[in-house]
């Protein structure tokens, strides 16, 4: 058996098999190292896949040996190879710290189940990204969603359960919308294979069911991506979830929603029709800009900083949506790069929250007083990741913003460029508010607070360093993104 040929399958199978084994391990103490191992292997596989794609182009894997369009295929192109790396990489970074970041009162046994759920969520997200079959995408979507509802509900605050319930209701409605859209597509074309759909849809674009399918899928994906005004589930869910869950989902879950949007628009429906006749750009761009402003403005007034980060995610998803809506090359590069970059920086910021919560018990703004001195490394990470959020040069945030503005200017949408820039200035306010408290406010004179333990600090630092590294050397991110764009826009 040639392992390399089976990488796409192994990408999913490794975490999928890892999850039940993790639940069955006779010694619960082994669960954590095992989960770390699984996520590391998964990450290694996605790196290998990315390399393979960059070397050979699109990789197609036939499940069960059935030929497409009858069987399920996994298709890895540059776009989802990058996303696979993001998702599995975040899992590999976050997983070792799980013990510290999910509340102190969890028992070994419940932690084992927690890890099982986390691996299932990972499987689901990887599956959404890798599959080339529309219905398979729905199944993976539900796998990841169900496990994420459960993970969020493990938060120690009683509001976690309520937040998870809300997410469940809205998330299920969103996923069902996608299901309806897929059903309509199947009804009209008789196929579920995305590439095949893309070919057959061309002649059917004038029909109502196809147009309805577009609407249903976009709305469903918007709910999953937490695109304003369908973002209502997110702030509470990320605020009350355990820190590690917020870090992982904050960095990946909304991105997967954005991926669904990109994939269906470009591979299935065809960009020129979606943005031309259907004028979806006129929906995505205004909504994106509105999200950027609404999210940032609300973030400014939050006292709970995890909630602040969640609202900032609303704003950042707005940028992604606006970037997709521009419909041109640079816009799409901006969207893809920002999906990746925002994952990095939001992951770093949520990890900082995990450190602070571990030491201070909560992530209220008042608990940050004087932390600049007490937890210098953690707060240093906050400052750097925060600067990235603002979009300062030499950080990842700048790269995405550059392409977004470039895309807007090229599309002739001047107001968009100006509004994007203005809204990103709001980030200065909500980030700097925290920095001021951390560095200038006197620390409360209670017991001494130490720096976070290495187990949490190292992942935080790692993500922060990546925020800068990918902001300086952008060959990987922008290179892969432009390759992906030429793939999606059909100009290889």
């Amino acid at each position, binding site marked *: 058996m040639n392992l390399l040929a089976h990488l796409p399958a192994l990408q999913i199978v490794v975490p999928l098999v890892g999850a039940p*084994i993790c639940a069955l391990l006779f010694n619960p103490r082994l669960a954590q190292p095992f989960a770390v191992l699984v996520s590391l292997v998964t990450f290694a596989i996605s790196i290998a896949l990315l390399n393979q794609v960059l070397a050979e182009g699109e990789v197609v*894997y036939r499940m069960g040996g059935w030929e497409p369009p009858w069987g399920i295929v996994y298709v890895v192109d540059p776009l989802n190879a990058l996303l696979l790396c993001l998702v599995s990489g975040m899992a590999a970074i976050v997983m070792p710290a799980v013990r510290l970041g999910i509340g102190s009162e969890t028992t070994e046994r419940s932690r084992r189940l927690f890890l099982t759920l986390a691996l299932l969520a990972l499987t689901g997200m990887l599956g959404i990204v890798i599959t080339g079959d529309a219905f398979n995408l729905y199944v993976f979507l539900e796998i990841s969603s169900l496990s994420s509802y459960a993970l969020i509900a493990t938060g120690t605050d009683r509001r976690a359960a309520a937040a998870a319930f809300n997410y469940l209701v809205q998330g299920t409605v969103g996923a069902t919308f996608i299901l309806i859209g897929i059903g309509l597509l199947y009804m009209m074309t008789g196929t579920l294979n995305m590439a095949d759909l893309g070919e057959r849809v061309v002649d059917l674009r004038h029909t109502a069911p196809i147009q309805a399918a577009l609407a249903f899928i976009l709305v469903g994906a918007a709910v999953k991506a937490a695109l304003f005004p369908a973002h209502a589930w997110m702030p509470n869910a990320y605020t009350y979830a355990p820190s590690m869950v917020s870090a992982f989902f904050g960095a990946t879950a909304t991105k997967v929603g954005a991926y669904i949007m990109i994939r269906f628009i470009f591979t299935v429906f065809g960009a020129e029709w979606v943005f031309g006749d259907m004028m979806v750009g006129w929906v995505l761009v205004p909504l994106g800009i509105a999200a950027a402003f609404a999210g940032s403005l609300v973030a400014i007034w939050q006292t709970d900083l995890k909630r602040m980060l969640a609202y900032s995610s609303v704003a950042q998803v707005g940028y992604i949506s606006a970037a997709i809506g521009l419909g041109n090359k640079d816009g799409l590069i901006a969207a893809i790069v920002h999906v990746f970059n925002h994952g990095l920086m939001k992951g770093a910021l949520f990890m900082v929250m995990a450190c602070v919560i571990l030491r201070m018990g909560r992530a209220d703004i008042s608990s940050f007083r004087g932390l600049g001195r007490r937890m210098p490394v953690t707060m240093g990470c906050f400052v750097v990741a925060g600067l990235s959020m603002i979009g300062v040069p030499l950080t990842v945030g700048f790269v995405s913003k550059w392409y977004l503005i470039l895309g807007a200017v090229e599309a002739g949408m001047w107001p968009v460029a100006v509004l994007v820039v203005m809204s990103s200035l709001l980030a200065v306010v909500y980030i700097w508010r925290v920095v001021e408290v951390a560095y200038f406010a006197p620390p409360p004179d209670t017991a001494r607070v130490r720096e976070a333990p290495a187990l949490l600090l190292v992942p935080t630092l790692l993500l922060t360093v990546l925020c800068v590294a990918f902001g300086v050397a952008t060959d990987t991110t922008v290179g892969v993104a432009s390759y992906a764009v030429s793939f999606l826009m059909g100009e290889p």
Partner: protein
Amino acid sequence: MNEHLIVRVVTKMLVPFVLLFAIYVQMHGDFGPGGGFQAGVIFATGFIVYGLVFGIERLIKALPLRILLFGISGGLLLYAGVGIASLFAGGTYLDYGVLDSHDPVHGQHLGILLVELGVGITVASVMTAIFITFAERWHR
């Protein structure tokens, strides 16, 4: 329902047949209507009826959660294991045809049987586990 003698007796007599029917549906899956999902649910109903009538404690005694967890994970592992086995046999993931070196059709039969068995075990365990978890919590 402990005081309803008729219900108890009838249940006692029916449960084995329910389980047997489940196994029939399970095994018949690759020729006619049936398969792992349906069989699993039917199998679980057998246990659920038992629990309803004789009390949750007796059901837990017969089927501890530990066993159920084993069933849930084991079923999934069986399913995934078949896929991995076909990888090792030289096919793609879940390509049952390669499982039998002589006749692909035999391999396909074997593969689908095992996969459906895995699905059945998982579904049956999950359904029972859901019932037990809720009922036990309410009981307390």
